[in-house]
């Protein structure tokens, strides 16, 4: 048998009573058991319907402008009883069902209620299968779920019947870059998301009064607040900042270990390079990292508070010409162009520093990388005696171009339809 459910009107009547009943109840409360239309209309909702059915059922009669009660109010009204039963998913008499359908109080919705019924175990108050319908009808409220055997895998997955899944395209793009860099001889570095300022700034010879360390350019942690400093390097890094090492004058200020201990979400992945230099890297050696970084930027189409950076280092008997050679190779192998330009740039931890512009076949000239040779004030305290080339690549624009998107936020797309189709 088909299932039925209440229409909006049906639900309303179930809750507030049939209009004809409400009409006769009102009349019954009046001393003369009658009233004029003018009096009744404002007081009875759906008055025309109420009157139509009350007349048809001969509960009232109409005399000119006056409505007179003919019978005492019936205790049970078949329609109301039927609405109740239908709402509970029980069967009702065919005849009355017909009337209700005619009155548009009930509709045939075979699927929905069948599933609800099935979802409710026979006992009525315990849910067997939680379904969309049980959720939308809120029938789960106040009910228990039937416990099932959770330690057995009853359904065996039939792989052949499964629709294809897909990789997240931006993640896949990052995987490709990762493989490309490994092919170019770079070893991947990893490190913690939350860093001490020591590794994020101090070990990179960024002075504690540098504007980039200010409140508004990087995040600080509220909890946990302080990390530990690496004993081996604290003294020499302090010296590098205060008085200088390796022939440098230093920044000449009083270095504060409490500031260096503060924790922050890493603001760049250069901290991974610093950690690598501090842990006896291979020389000659090449390292890279692709890592999530965090900055309190205003969010717009080209800024996010969380983004990926691609960075790396080369250790060995290398010089500025090699740095440009490496940048050119990146432009060729990753951006797909041989046309490059180099522009003087500034980073507090490299000197000399260079920006790489690459002429992408479609995008035109794009800023593709920042780079330089690490300062000796940085490498010396970490025990490195050879020049270290440092580079970072801006690959997000390439990724956006590849994926055909204009908003950087969509690299972390929330749109399933797009992910399925792209």
């Amino acid at each position: 048998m088909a299932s039925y459910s209440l229409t909006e009107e049906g639900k309303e009547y179930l809750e507030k009573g049939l209009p004809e009943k409400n009409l006769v109840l009102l009349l019954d409360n009046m001393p003369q058991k009658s009233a004029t239309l003018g009096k009744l209309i404002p007081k009875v909702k759906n008055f025309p319907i109420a009157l139509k059915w009350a007349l048809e059922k001969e509960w009232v009669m109409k005399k000119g402008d006056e409505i007179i009660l003919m019978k005492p109010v019936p205790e049970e009204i078949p329609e109301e009883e039927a609405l109740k039963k239908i709402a509970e998913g029980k069967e009702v008499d065919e005849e009355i069902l017909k009337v209700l359908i005619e009155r548009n109080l009930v509709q045939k919705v075979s699927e929905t209620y069948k599933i609800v019924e099935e979802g409710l175990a026979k006992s009525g108050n315990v849910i067997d299968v939680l379904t969309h319908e049980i959720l939308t009808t809120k029938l789960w409220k106040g009910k228990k779920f039937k416990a099932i055997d959770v330690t057995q895998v009853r359904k065996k997955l039939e792989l052949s019947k499964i629709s294809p899944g897909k990789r997240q395209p931006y993640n896949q793009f990052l995987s490709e870059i990762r493989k490309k860099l490994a092919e170019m001889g770079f070893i991947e570095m990893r490190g913690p998301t939350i860093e001490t300022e020591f590794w994020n700034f101090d070990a990179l010879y960024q002075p504690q009064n540098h504007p980039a360390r200010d409140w508004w350019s990087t995040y600080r942690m509220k909890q946990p607040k302080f990390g530990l400093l690496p004993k081996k390097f604290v003294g020499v890094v302090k010296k590098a900042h205060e008085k200088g090492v390796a022939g440098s004058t230093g920044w000449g200020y009083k270095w504060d270990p409490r500031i260096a201990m503060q924790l922050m979400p890493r603001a760049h992945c250069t901290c991974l390079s610093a950690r690598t230099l501090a842990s006896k890297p291979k020389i000659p050696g090449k390292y890279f990292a692709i890592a999530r970084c965090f900055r309190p930027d205003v969010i717009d189409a080209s800024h996010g508070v969380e983004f990926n950076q691609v960075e790396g280092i080369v250790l060995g008997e290398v010089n500025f010409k090699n740095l440009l050679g490496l940048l050119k190779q990146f432009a060729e192998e990753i951006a797909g162009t041989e046309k490059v330009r180099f522009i003087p740039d500034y980073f507090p931890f490299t000197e000399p520093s260079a920006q790489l512009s690459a002429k992408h076949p479609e995008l035109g000239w794009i800023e593709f990388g920042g780079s330089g040779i690490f300062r000796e004030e940085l490498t010396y305290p970490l025990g490195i005696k050879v020049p270290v080339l440092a580079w970072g690549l801006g690959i997000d624009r390439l990724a956006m171009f590849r994926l055909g998107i204009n908003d950087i936020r969509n690299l972390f797309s929330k749109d399933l339809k797009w992910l399925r189709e792209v």
Partner: protein
Amino acid sequence: MPTIEASYQDLCELIGKKVGIEELKELVNFAKCEIDAVDGDNLKIEAKDTNRPDLWSSEGIAREIKSRIFKPKFPEYKVKKSDVVVEVDRKVAKVRPFTVCAVVKNLNVSNAFLSQVIQLQEKIAGTLGRNRKEVAIGVYDYDKIKPPIRFTTVKPDGIKFIPLDFTEKMTPKEILEKHPKGKEFGHLLAGKKEYPIFIDARNEVLSLPPIINSEYSGKVTEETKNVFIECSGFNLKFLMPALNVMVAAMADRGGEIYSVKVVYPDKTIFTPDLDPKKTFVDVDYIKKISGLKLSLSEICKLLEKANYKILKKGKRIELLYPAYRNDIMHQRDVVEDVIISYGYNKIEPEPLKMKTEGKVSEAEIQNEKIANIMVSLGFQEILSYTLTNKANIFQKMNLKEEKVAEIENIVSENWSVFRNWLLPSLMEFFSNNQHVEYPQKIFEVGNVVLIDEKQETKTRDVRKLAAAIADSRVGYDDIAAVLDAFMSLVGVKYKLERTEHASFIQGRVARILFNGKEIGIIGEIRPEVLENWKLEMPVAAFEIEIENLI
């Protein structure tokens, strides 16, 4: 890095040659600048070197260009002696202990001069001066001041003067409350019992640093001929170069610099000190770092183009450089100037010859393997932020709050904590895609951050996999089948054990055990949780740690 505005015509005049805009775009690279936008005569320039305030104005940029396109002439600045005295009261030690000052005379104050000087003053105080905290700069009409000038303190209501751009006399307290600059920078004087003040021999107030100048003498216009400049703050190391940069820029426009005698209770100094500074660079070091084959005379020419003066040639070249520079800490800094003079784009890039073996990290290899398995099981990979909020990871998941890595200076509550589990990211994703066809099967492989007191950073990153199915009917058996297939594909023998979890329906949730250790959770999501995410479809999900899994 500061962004400055400049007039194209004015810049050309300072350079001494009319250069085309395209050529200018190339030339400003010598000053580590880039022209971001051209709007008629107005240029928007990005000055990239945060450590060289001398390059944050047209005068400084022109200096670097001039020496590269003409025969270089070492920029030397003569400082004449004046009899202007600034007396520093002992009382300022508690509020703003230092000042350095100068007088510049015979200026031809043009519109361009005014806009550049005001801009330079703002950029120095903003960037180098950390928004006036470390360095505040005041420029005054010298002819309206009667020296000696006193740098002293007053009570917040101890004096009245008309602040710049106002018409009424106000006390310092009123200025902090009512003047826009007082509102903006008043916090720098918060809690002080007395405020710093510059005042002249007639008791006319020059300024209330670091807030505002007076209307009387603190206003420089095209009529101004001579100016008095002071920089105040907490560290002479910042103040000296700030003053030098300011007066050098004015001198480049024809001003004559005069020194000021600044008398402290314990010492007397004459400022500004524009004597060139000494340094050196080794020829071999230049060759080693640059990789360029250069002769000594070539190197010397390149150094001169970068505004150095050669004192002594040899294996070690002894040098002088102008006092407006404060960035040279190591001979590496000199090497960069040589390379910039040579021209980055004239250098033939040289490929690296070293042979090294590259490697993707084990963690990423595993992540990818796991992602590919989930794809083969028909799941769509998603990627979300690790930054989220407490509502998402606790309240909406029907969990009690616990300690989690939390950010102090948030830009939005939405990104205020690091996720400590992945499933909320998946729930949020479902929540955003209710209009998309079901069934929806998604997964994410990603990091969560856990508090861990034992670690150096007091936190630990943990790699996890979470997978979930949303459909009109989906249950424990569906997701258990996926977990089972996944585990058999990665070759892991696991066990399921009944447990309870506030996010999952009671009786329909299990712990996932591997080698006797709990590595994850699986079950049907509670309707309350689904409602919290406004989901109308049931969800079954699992989440497991994948560190050390394969």
